[in-house]
């Protein structure tokens, strides 16, 4: 028996561990370090209709147990991703979850329609929660009705299941989750980064050129756990959890909270081999805790 095998809408995963969007590019760099076939899935960098350069630098700033980023959705656009990035990833036996972003509903719909037809894209992740773009992005992620309507429109055109990535920058995360479930979402991914700022001691000005950025890393883990704990009890769709994961122990904690799979973001920068390491460590941890299969851990905190 494969104790890590995980079934989710559209996704037959060898294991529930995948790199988070924006922290793994389109896989090429990590492909030089280890066999990408080891991964459960890959969440690729956000794709928009047009190529984007993103924000000016500095784009990252370190914080206590975390980091701020304001990359600004830099990507080669749907054509570049469809023609160069996804075909390269086809050499691996790994499902791709395509992160879809935009400034208008039409943008999202166009990217979703096209990218969902790629051979190896087995699910979409609607990025309605990027804090680093001036228009779109976060507006879709903070108003329940807007998020629901967008989910519906994307569902109409996508030929693969649609997961919606929730922003933690809201007052009522459960309300948002229910709205996108109503809109037809097949699953949720959460959480995206928390909006933050750091100032330079010498200049008194923000370190990031964009002034604000998204906080990620171990610092946000308790926020993610709390939100997944609350949301998983109120919806009937699965959750891919993320936010500060860097060990097998963290993975189990996310499962206890209510996640059915997890993604690793910032930890890839600290230790580029962290994903295969976690996958390797999980079976032994399951032994220690007395579980046969990792799915037994989901929702234990409230179940």
């Amino acid at each position, binding site marked *: 028996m494969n104790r890590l095998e995980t079934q989710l809408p559209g996704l037959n995963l060898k294991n529930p561990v995948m790199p988070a969007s924006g922290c793994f590019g389109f896989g090429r760099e990590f492909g030089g370090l280890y066999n990408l076939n080891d991964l459960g899935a890959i969440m690729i960098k956000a794709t928009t209709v047009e190529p984007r350069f*993103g924000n000016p630098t500095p*784009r*990252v700033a*370190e914080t206590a*147990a975390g980091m701020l980023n304001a*990359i600004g959705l*830099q990507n080669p656009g749907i054509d570049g991703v469809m023609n160069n990035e996804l075909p390269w990833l086809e050499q691996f036996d790994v499902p791709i979850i395509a992160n879809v972003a935009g400034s208008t509903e039409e943008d999202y719909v166009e990217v979703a329609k096209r990218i969902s037809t790629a051979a190896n894209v087995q699910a979409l992740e609607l990025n309605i929660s990027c804090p680093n773009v001036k228009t779109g992005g976060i507006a879709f992620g903070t108003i329940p009705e807007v998020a629901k309507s967008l989910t519906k429109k994307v569902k109409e055109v996508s030929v693969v299941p649609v997961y919606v990535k929730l922003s933690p920058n809201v007052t009522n995360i459960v309300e948002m989750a229910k709205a996108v479930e109503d809109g037809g979402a097949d699953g949720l991914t959460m959480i995206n980064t928390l909006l933050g700022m750091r100032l330079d001691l010498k200049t008194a000005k923000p370190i990031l050129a964009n002034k604000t950025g998204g906080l990620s890393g171990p610092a946000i883990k308790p926020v993610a756990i709390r939100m997944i704990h609350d949301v998983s009890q109120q919806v009937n769709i699965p959750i891919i959890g993320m936010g500060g994961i860097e060990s097998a122990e963290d993975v189990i904690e996310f499962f206890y909270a209510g996640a059915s799979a997890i993604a690793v973001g910032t930890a890839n920068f600290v230790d*580029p081999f962290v994903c295969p390491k976690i996958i390797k460590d999980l079976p032994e941890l399951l032994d220690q805790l007395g579980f046969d299969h990792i799915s037994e851990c989901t929702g234990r905190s409230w179940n």
Partner: protein
Amino acid sequence: MIVNEHCSIVSQREIAENIYELILHGELTSKMNEPGQFVHVKVASGYAPLLRRPLSIAHVNKENQEFTLIYRKDGRGTAILSSKKTSETVDILGPLGHGFPIEETKAGETAVLVGGGIGVPPLYELSKQLVKKGVNVKHVLGFQNHAAVFYEDKFKSFGSTYVTTVDGSHGTKGFVTDVMNELSFDTIYSCGPTAMLKAVEAGYATHKKVYVSLEERMGCGIGACFACVCHTADDPFGFSYKKVCTDGPVFKAGEVVL
């Protein structure tokens, strides 16, 4: 090939005010081929600090499997690194990036190596490799003041060396470009603060062989996070870009917007 290795400290000493020379032992030394490459250093396990620090490779001794980092104790990360003692280990990821093209200067030709402050270290390995292939090297090294000067004698052993300081407390008072104007050479290799690189680029805009090494804040250091991008010079407001960590840190002058 990028390797992650816990390298043991052979020695660490303060060689100028707040400037440390750290010699490490590790098998990844065998992969260090281009002068100007860097390593990504995790100065402490755990979260304080979380991210790695990029530091240039200043010298490589393949025979002993040793390499040298020279850094300024600046913020929290480098302060922790400076407190490490012999026989402790340091978590190193590398070698990373593309270094200076030594093939651009032929044996018998002259290269000038222009460094500012903590941009000086990678020029030492570069100078060694250029001299080995028969290139005449000249060094122009700029520092803040007398207390900040390091490796002057080591550079002198490879070729003529001119030191400038901002306050004139050592060598010539002024900037590296003032000294460069007095010299003749075929190639310029430069590393230092952006203002200095800009001055070098502007002063030698028609010179064909000028190479500059850039600094940018990094996340991953391996090309995956898009933290360290810069615009290309032929498309300064468009979406074409280079990553400092993988396409650089060394670029041909005029290739990217400084």
